[in-house]
Structures are given as C-alpha cells and as structure tokens.
C-alpha cells in the first residue's frame, strides 16, 4: 500500500509541474503588472527541479515524508528569492505532517494542505489579506478541514478546496500588497490578482485532479 501512496504523491508533483508549465506565461504576465514578470519562470524552474529529483527516488522503498522532504530540498535549491523558502517550508511541514502515514486518503490530503498553508504563514510571517499565496492556501486548508468534518466524498472535498482557493485568489484583486516585491508598487497592485495566489490555484487544481482521479 505504501508504495502505491508514494507513487501517487510523486505523480501529483508531476501533474503540478505539467500544470505550472502550461500556465507559465500567464503567471509571468500577472507578475509583470506588479512584480518583475518572473513568477511563471520561477515556479516552472522549481517544479521541474522537484520532478527531476523525485525521479531519482526508489519509489518502492520511500515514505510519503521522504517524497515531501526531497521536493522541499529540490525546490529551495532551484529557486531562492522568496518563493523558494515559502514552498520549501510548505513541503517540509507537509512531510512532517505525513510522517508515518502510509495512505494518501482524504485525511492525509487535508493534513498536507493544512501543513503547507501554515508552513508558508510561519515562514512569510503573513496573514490573510496581505495579497499573497496565503490568500489561496489558508481558505483551501479551511475548506479541506470542513469537508473532512462533514464526511464529504473525494469529489466534494476537492471541489470545496479548489473553489475556496479560487475565491481567495480572486479576492486579492482588491488587496494592497505589503509583502515582497509587489509591496514596492503599493497602490498600483490594486485591481491585479496576486501571481502567487494565482499559481497556488494552479497547484491546488493539479493536486485535485491528480489525487482525486487516482483515489
């Protein structure tokens, strides 16, 4: 069973990488409005590195937490800047959250999303309303926990998660960035979706289709 779960987690990262690749230019374009137009490239580099590093793993022998730790290291070394530490911390915390778990059931998925959101929040010292990726991840984590508590099935679970992330990302339009490069343009960031929140939606959608399909 554990081999199956680790494989599923690796194919989830592959799906994320493919999705990010497809949205790369769009994400860079969003970033161009309020940052330095490299967010798509950055995310693409990060997940390509994750994919390459995960390919080296012996999937029959590794734990879910090993997959997450490997992804964290690969992403950090490839990216740097601020996206690197944020996602690296997210994956590392997710690795801790799934330590000892052998099933990639909805409870584990909820734990991963929750750990990623709180990892980013701790690292970035941010909160909702800061116009960052947290505005997508934190609502997604809440939705996951709520869906789990209501015993929703996989379809309902992932639909709620993705819908909450999308609503959160859309809400960043009326926010002013106070963190990172977008903070430099202050009021000019108004009216634009935060590229970090937009890429979070891309990632969560890919997680949903990959993990729900394989469940």
């Amino acid at each position: 069973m554990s081999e199956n779960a680790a494989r599923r987690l690796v194919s989830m990262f592959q799906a994320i990488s493919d999705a990010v690749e497809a949205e790369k230019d769009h994400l860079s374009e969003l970033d161009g409005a309020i940052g330095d137009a490299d967010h798509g490239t950055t995310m693409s580099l990060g997940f390509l590195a994750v994919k390459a590093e995960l390919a080296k793993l012996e999937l029959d022998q590794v734990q879910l937490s090993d997959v997450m730790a490997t992804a964290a290291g690969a992403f950090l070394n490839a990216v740097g800047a601020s996206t690197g530490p944020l996602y690296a911390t997210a994956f590392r915390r997710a690795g801790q959250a799934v330590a000892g778990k052998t099933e990639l059931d909805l409870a584990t998925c909820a734990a991963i999303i929750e750990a990623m959101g709180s990892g980013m929040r701790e690292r970035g010292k941010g909160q909702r309303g800061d116009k960052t990726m947290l505005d997508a991840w934190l609502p997604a984590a809440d939705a996951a926990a709520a869906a789990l508590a209501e015993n929703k099935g996989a379809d309902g679970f992932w639909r709620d998660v993705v819908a909450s992330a999308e609503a959160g990302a859309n809400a960043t339009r009326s926010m002013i960035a106070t963190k990172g490069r977008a903070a430099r343009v202050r009021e000019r960031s108004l009216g634009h979706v935060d590229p970090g929140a937009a890429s979070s939606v891309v990632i969560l959608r890919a997680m949903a289709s990959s993990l729900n399909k394989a469940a």
Partner: protein
Amino acid sequence: MTSKTSSPRKGGASRSGAADTSDAIPLRYGDDPYVWACWLYYEDGMTQGEIADAMGVSRATVNSYLADAREKGIVNISLEPARLASLTIAQELKRHFGLADCLVVPSDDNARPLIDSLGVAGAMALQKLMKSGDTLAVSWGRTVMSVGEHADVQALQDATVVQATGGTTAAFSYTPELCAASIARAIGARCVGITAPAIVKSPEMRQMLLDEPLLQEQFATLAQANRILFGISSLRPNSTIHTSGFFDTVSLQDYLAAGAVGVVAGRFIDERGRPVAGPLDDRTVGISLDMLRRIGTRIAVAGGFDKVPALLAALRGGYVNVLITDAATGHGILRADGVTGLDTRISQRPKLVQTPSSYRTHVKKFLNNPNEVVEEMLDGVVRAHRDYIEPINGSHRALLAKSGPRPGKVGLVIGGGTGHEPCFLGYVGKGLADAVAVGNIFSSPPPDPIVQCAVAASGGEGVLFVYGNYAGDVMNFEMAAEIAEEKGIKVRTVLTTDDIASSPIEDREGRRGVAGNFFIFKIAGAACDRGLSLDACEAVTRKANLRTYTVGVALEPCSMPQTRRHNFEIGPDDMEIGMGIHGEPGVTRERIKPADDITDAIMDNIFKEMKATAGDRVAVLVNSFGATPLMELYILYRRVAQRLAAKNIEIEANWIGHYCTSLDMVGASISILHLDQELTDLLHHPCETAFLRIN
C-alpha cells in the same frame, strides 16, 4: 508679473476715457486687444467696466475679448496639480459611491503628517455639518483624535457628543473617552460617555450591564445621534486594532479566517461590508452596525494605503456617506473598485505618448551573456580583491574574509542581492565582515551559501547575521540560521532598517535597509573584531541601526542587465524622494528642485527623527545610486555640512562616493550615523576591506 510699482488700478482708472480707439493700445501689448484686455483683467485686477473705459470699447466687447482669449489659449487657468487631483478624486468618489459629500486632502503635503491633514479636514467637515441641537456619536482612533485636536466650532447650541463604544484601557492616547471628550470640547458640546468596557468577558456580563439604568440612559442618547464621526481600522499588523490591544490576537485570527478586512466602530466587516460574525459579537458594548447605518450623517475620516480594503468595504456596506481621506487612498479605493480612466484626468500635464526612455528602447551596457552577469562579475571580484576575500569551497556565492575569522571571535555574516556593489562584498575583510552570501540581481541568496558563510565565519563564539530588511532576505537568512543552529552554531540576527522614508516611525521595524548598511556593518565588524561577546556585538549593532538615518532621492530609474530596459519610470521633470535601492516607491514624487532644496528636504526628514543636540557628533555618508557623479555628491555634501554646522553638530567622519548602489540609477542618498562614545570608538577601529580601509 510686471515691474510696475504704482497702484495698477489707479493707473487704469486715470486712463479711462483717454483712449477711444485701438490705435491707443499701449506698445507693449503689440496690436492685440485680447492681450491688453486680459492683462488689465487678470494682472491689474480691473473690473470689466473699468477695462471698457480704459480701452474705449463697450463692456460687452471686453467680455467677449476675455471669453475668446480663453478659447484661443491666450489665457490658461491652472489649478495646482495636487489640489486638482484631490478635487477630481473627491468628485469621483462622491459619484461612484453615491456619497453626500467627500473631502480629499492632497497626499504629498510635506508641510504636515497625513494624520494632521486628515484632522484639519475632519474639523472643516464638522464646522460645515454640525448644527445646534445635533447629537454626534464619536468613535475612537488616532485620526478621530486628530479631528478633535484641530476642530474649533463656535456658536453651536445644545449640541451633544456621545461616545459610540464602551471604554478601553488607557494605555494609549486616543481612547473612546478621550476622543469623545476632545470633540465635545472642540465643538462646545455636552459629552455623554458609555461607562462600561467596550469588550466584556461574557455575553451574560454584557446583558447585565445593558440592563443597568445608567447604561440604558447612555444608550438612549446614542440612539438619538443624528450624526456620527468614526475612523476605520484595517487589520494590518501595525493597525490601531493591533497596537491598542483592543482585541486579543486570538479573536483577531478568528475574524481574519472569516474574511474580515476592517473594523468600523469596533465591529468587523468583510470585503463587501457585511458584518463578520465572531466570538466578540455578544461581548461588545457599543453601537451596532445596524444602528450606525440608520444615522443620517455618517462621517468617516481615514487615510493611508493600508486602509484601502477596509475603506472600500465600509463604503460598499453603506456605513459612510461623508468621506474624508487623502488623494492616494481615494485613488486606491476607486482603482480597487474597478474605476479606470482616472489616471489621465488627474495628471495635469498631457501624457507624452512616448516616455523619454523609449527614445532608445535599450540602455547600453558592457555585457557578454546577460544571463551570466553575476557569475562574470564575481569572477572579476574574486580576481580583483584576492587580498581581502576568497571563495568558500570554491563557490563565488559565498566569500570569506582572508584572516578575518578566528577562534574566540564572533563571526559577522552579511549578504543580499547583487546590483548594489560595493555592497555587500566590498565590506568583507579583517575588522569588518567575515563572510558574504551573494544572491542574484536584487534577489536574496538561498540558504545554502548563507550556511556556508556561517560555518566558515564561526569561531566558536557564535555568528551575527546583519542584512537589510527585505522579505526574501529575511526568509532565506532565517532558514539558514535554523540550519546553522542545527549544526551547533549560535546565530543572532540584526535587520538593518535605516531607510526612514520607507515607513512611518510607528512602523520602524518594517523599514528597509539601504546605504546606512555601511555604518551598521562597520560598527558590527569592529565589535566582533574586538572580541566582544555575541550579546554585546548584537546590542551595539542594534544601537547603530537605531541611530542611522537614511533618505534617498532618485532622478532616473535603473535598468536590469537581462532586459537593458528601465525597471520603472520617473517623469522627465520629476524626482522621487525616499525611493529605495530597488526602485521601491518613496514618500513623494515631485518636480525636481535645486540641489540645496533637495538636501534640505532630506535633512529635514532626518532631523525630525534624530534627536541630536549642539555638540553631538555624527558620521555622514553621501552615496551615489550608481550613475550620479562625485561632482554632484560634493554639492549635496556641502549643504549637509552647512545644515549640520547650523545646529552645531560636529562631523566626526565622512564618506562620499559609491557605497550602496542600485545598478545605473541616477540619484543619491544621505545617511547620518548619530554617534556616541562607544560608536565613535568602533567607527575608528581598523579594518581592511576592498572598499573601506581604516588603520
């Protein structure tokens, strides 16, 4: 104006009747009756009747001359751009949100802080809106307090001011009680308090209090209010809501999770202005949102970018029908609500189709492969400065001071993005930094090279990280610190925050680190080299940071090597005071002024914060952003020295040149380190680095 000295009106009148044809047009107007008429009207201040007499034509002719002159463009009437922008924004806010009235103050009024401008505007609104017999409910906050400080409304009879919420801790100076009392005093009104805490421990306690006859009487007064004055708080970490301790943090997180973006009279609202339910609802003693919305005149006074989402929510929720804010905030609200096209209307000068930088689309640079600029530069650096630095484990991204680290000495690690040379690698060497981690252009190094630096710099007594306060640097250095700690190296961190223009004093910890790094690194390096303990090194570095004040001015943008294009724009006649070293927005963008005026603006800002008295000593750094030559830096220094001399402040040492740059940006910054005996001593401690040598 002309050089006339006699009274023009008398002169005009005496000419009356003397001229009866246009042959009599004085020479200086050529043969243009329009110019003559305009001159007499606009410059000499004559009436149309007097002009008709002077020109020997009918009054109707004068009237048509004046009208035609405006159409022909002989006369242009212009309003000061900042005020015009304010009016346009106020009009648009009023229209877009259906407000009864809106007052917008210019944002870039250097004469006084925003909070005072808002206070004065709020005072004007009270003057205009308050009538005898009115009952005004008053909420609380810094801005409301400022209205009270500036208002002076005479001759109101039978006015009542009533506190809109219960009371709070008196730990700050703008409590509900003080705000209500201040406004009551300013408008000569009777003041009614709400003599209960704003937040009580339990719903039962609230009910018991509300059943008290005294509170019922007070709430009855509140229910009679026909006007209310309130501020609006954002939920940002530095907002009133956080600093006042009005709500406990645990509750705040609940509300944030439920989508709250702002607070109106102690009640949370979401982005559409809907009430957000939460644990405090049944424990809050004060006006409810429904009560507030039923009041006829609802005056909100609030400003600052941080408040845009909260203000927008309050407007959408209909809590406000008279808005008092500043131009930048007002503009932000409109933009956030999707109003476009305002930008062209509020810029006074017609927009050039092409900005001057697109005269050439690319800036010329010495480049081989644009993607290799950092590597190639570092290769050159390592070759040039082999006397001072060497790569750690062969990596150019982690450089070590030769003969710097040694057992028993605290190691000093600095670092950051490239593009600021000689920051940071120019300050690595004996007596200064022990190691530097090097990132990409304007981008933090990842944790790995920072850890390598920490390991190499460690002499067993701990390592001090000193770097500028930027989100990316903070995250990567923090991760590096965690990893170094796991390796048994004790790490302390001091973030440099010397850019006083980057954030107001209340948010001092949120400020950026810029050229003042030079002084802070120097002090930290000396302390480490003297063999002080990690605690002592950290303490004196913190002190140096607190006593270093920098303001920069940008005249032209910088261009990135990869794109060779400007990474932002500054208008042909503009400058930006307070701009950061990556092109971050500053305090004001305004018309360029003479060098002395610019220096004065910078020094005035510094003097506002630096509490130096006659006889005190300072160190001065006049730093080029890259493209500004020494010639101009000396012109700036001259004025800095004059200003300091006028206050009898002694310049202990000065540095003038390229010390912390921003690629090829045109501009300069002035940094002042306010010395004391300890800092003076450490400033003179010997050091050997590529860009600073003291012996």
